[in-house]
């Protein structure tokens, strides 16, 4: 049953997301594109682009979008979005209850110190796995990649502007 599968997949994604939205991309990609094959790499890239241009966390945005496109209706969106938030509820309410024990816990801190460098690997993997022939069909896409990289890193342009400029470039070049 598709709803149950959506629930399990997004519950897992919510449970193992550490280090914010970009690290989450890797988890969503692995589950939705690689394991389940629900959407292809270029549609997944489109979803990330849309998520970055619209308000709200990338995790909610992609759960809503993927839930809809996998099931074809709103129920899929609701299930996926609910599932991605559910681990947070369980964990944060538990922490709020055991607040004092959790605050400054040495073991949790140690585990998080170990996870931190892994997050960098996760984000790098997400980027590498998105370099597919569909996303980069020719040299023009590499030019756009280079320009966007420089604009964002060196020019400190915000993501929305970079995406809009890239969209205009796409309109002119393709």
């Amino acid at each position, binding site marked *: 049953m598709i709803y149950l599968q959506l629930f399990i997949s997004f519950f897992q994604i919510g449970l193992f997301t550490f280090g914010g939205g970009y690290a989450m991309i890797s988890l969503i990609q692995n589950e939705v594109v690689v394991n389940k094959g629900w959407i292809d790499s270029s549609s997944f890239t489109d979803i990330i682009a849309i998520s970055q241009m619209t308000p709200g966390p990338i995790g909610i945005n992609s759960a809503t979008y993927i839930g809809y496109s996998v099931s074809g209706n709103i129920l899929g969106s609701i299930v996926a979005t609910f599932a991605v938030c559910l681990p947070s509820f369980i964990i944060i309410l538990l922490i*709020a209850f055991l607040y004092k024990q959790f605050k400054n816990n040495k073991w949790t801190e140690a585990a998080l110190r170990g996870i931190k460098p892994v997050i960098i690997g996760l984000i790098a993997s997400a980027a590498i796995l998105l370099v597919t022939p569909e996303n980069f069909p020719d040299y023009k896409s590499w030019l756009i990649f280079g320009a966007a990289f420089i604009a964002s890193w060196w020019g400190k342009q915000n993501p929305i502007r970079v995406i809009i400029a890239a969209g205009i470039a796409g309109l002119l070049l393709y």
Partner: protein
Amino acid sequence: MNQYLQLFESFAKIGSFTIGGGYAMIPLIKTEVVDKRKWVKDTEFLDFLAISQSAPGILAINISIFIGEKVKGTKGSIVAALGSALPSFAIILLIALFFESFKENQLVVSIFSGIRPAVVALIAVPLISLSKSAKLNKYTSLIPLLSVLLIVLLGISPIWVILAGAMLGIFHYYFSKSRLNKLKKGDGE
């Protein structure tokens, strides 16, 4: 005004006006819940934020649950999380409805052909500042490299890689602590 309604309104406002993810939301959340509504104190907010960052899940949702719980218990946490998720849920659903039918349109195809490589660049750029802030040395820089190899080449789930990282952190802490204890004992004798 009813406090549930206030919670919902505050977080819906936060959810509708922050583009660019969780970290962009933090200043807005602070203004709303600390300065304006005075639901939590400044130091308390920083604690909530630190714990929300270290707990798994979506940062903005974690903080809303925390603050909702503080104000009105479990029900409050549900209302707050719903408030911060609902605006993006509604907007994305609308886009999904339209985008699925316009995907084949030639203009849309051209625009997204340009956008896709830029998205990959946008994911890659934060790696630079993240690597700097993680203060990687000769040994710890092997961890991200190894993670990439496992995920990209061997197709291992990022979940296992995260768990391995957590174990590594715990082992490292355990062994450096027991070594420290031995050193201390040595001093005493």
